[in-house]
């Protein structure tokens, strides 16, 4: 796969088309699986790693469940390309930074990614734009079945699918939704949401998962426990709670508009102004401003801009994307200037018909 082709699109999770996509950016389900009789990647020798890779790469090549996948050998990619895939959420930071033979199978729509030799031998994930967990589950369950028909997974009657970290054992499932919650952040109500989620065993993380910063008011909500509940029960827990958070965010937004329309309008317009006219801008500030503008569009305070354009900016202004778009390597200061240029151009030229 030529990674440069991907630079022209923004990928599944930023397509902004699914249900409730004004707040739910994307839905994702991942499954962790290991092959029986092989040590886990962190303890495997180079020869074992390559044997596992060869085996799973063979299964990926067979288009499991009819999913045509392109295989990328991660250890053969440059740092910039690996970073690029991390920014697109096609691979994890762990896979990018690991060592030894490892790879990923990616579908052309960028909604399926099967990682080989990550923390576990196989980490499969299916992604959908908007709130669409059932679709994710249907697809990933079928892919899992197809691969399982050819290999023997490490599985125990008592503990289910065996994983390198005991926190994933059982179903090996991580169900998550990526939410954009600027209203709850602005009103500081977000902490109540975190506490409520924690009480029902759900975790809140930043945009790029574990340990990442809560950039641009994006939060990932996912299950913690993986053992003792069925996949359907775990999915249901998230499916049941998300509508409450959406209602809360919408309520807070409409209160903000009613009580403070002028302030809010001022804030989102200034954010847009800064984006349109800045001459140098960091990716964090960009995220922060784009988040404001995104809310402005959703509240009808900003009219001359569309969500897909904005989503494209979210991804294209990140460091590796920017460098790939420019076909050159840049230091932070150069990137900040190039980023400002890119945003200015994208926001002042009317969007092309698409």
């Amino acid at each position, binding site marked *: 796969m030529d990674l440069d082709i991907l630079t022209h699109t923004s990928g599944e999770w930023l397509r902004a088309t699914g249900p409730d996509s004004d707040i739910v950016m994307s839905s994702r389900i991942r499954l962790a699986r290991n092959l029986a009789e092989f040590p886990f990647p962190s303890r495997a020798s180079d020869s074992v790693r390559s044997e596992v890779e060869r085996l799973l790469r063979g299964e990926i090549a067979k288009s499991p469940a009819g999913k045509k996948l392109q295989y990328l050998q991660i250890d053969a990619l440059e740092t910039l390309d690996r970073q690029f895939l991390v920014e697109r959420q096609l691979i994890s930071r762990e896979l990018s930074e690991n060592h030894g033979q490892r790879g990923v199978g990616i579908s052309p729509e960028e909604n399926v990614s099967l990682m080989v030799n990550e923390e576990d031998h196989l980490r499969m994930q299916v992604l959908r734009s908007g709130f669409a967990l059932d679709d994710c589950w249907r697809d990933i369950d079928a892919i899992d079945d197809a691969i399982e028909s050819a290999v*023997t997974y490490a599985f*125990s009657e008592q503990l289910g699918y065996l994983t390198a970290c005991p926190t994933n054992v059982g179903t090996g499932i991580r169900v998550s939704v990526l939410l954009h919650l600027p209203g709850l952040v602005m009103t500081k109500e977000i902490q109540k949401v975190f*506490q409520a989620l924690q009480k029902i065993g759900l975790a809140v993380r930043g945009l790029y998962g574990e340990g990442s*910063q809560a950039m641009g008011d994006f939060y990932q909500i996912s299950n913690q426990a993986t053992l*003792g509940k*069925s*996949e359907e029960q775990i999915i249901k827990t998230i499916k049941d709670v998300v509508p409450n958070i959406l209602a809360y965010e919408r309520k807070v937004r409409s209160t903000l508009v009613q009580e403070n329309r002028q302030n809010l309008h001022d804030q989102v317009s200034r954010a847009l102004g800064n984006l349109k006219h800045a001459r140098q801008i960091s990716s964090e500030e960009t995220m*922060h401003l784009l988040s404001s503008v995104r809310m402005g569009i959703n509240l009808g305070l900003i009219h001359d801009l569309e969500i897909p354009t904005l989503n494209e900016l979210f991804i294209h202004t990140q460091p590796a994307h920017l460098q790939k778009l420019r076909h050159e390597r840049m230091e932070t200061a150069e990137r900040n200037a190039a980023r400002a240029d890119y945003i200015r151009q994208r926001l002042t030229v009317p969007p092309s018909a698409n």
Partner: protein
Amino acid sequence: MRVLLRERRTGMKKCGRCSKPAMLHITEIRHGEVQALHLCESCAKEYLNESEAGGPPSDEDLSSAEGAEAPESGESEDDDESPVCPHCGISFKEFRKQGRLGCPHDYTAFHDELMPLLENIHGETQHVGKVPKRAPKASQHQFRLIRLRNRLKAAVDEEMYEEAARLRDEIQNLEAEAGSPGAASQ
């Protein structure tokens, strides 16, 4: 369980540990208590290192289970007592240190040590989810029963008694089937 959220922005706030301007704004939720911290770059680094140590996601779950034995660690004779997996050679102590197991057999080799840990992390110790289709018929059967009993419990909890009655019948049928000679020979 702990949740850490970090946000980077410059503002008027001063670092809570020294007098430099605060750059990182950390929201920490630990056991339901919310704490907001405003720290400068270097204090934040120190703080995050202290509290995260770069470990796996649920470090705190792992370490809280570890707490009970912690005072004894560090003595060299413990190494001999720490069980070792005969397949991959990892000791339980090594697993503790890195948070990752060595191979699937560790779950058997360290069964007694892992169970309290799993109970602590998941609150349960019996899998009720998906089963590989290639699993032997007998265990497929066993799993259907486990899943049904799990659903029955949920139905009773949610006071869905019609559903519960239906599930109870299904379980009884399945149990009868398992007891019949025909099913056993499979």
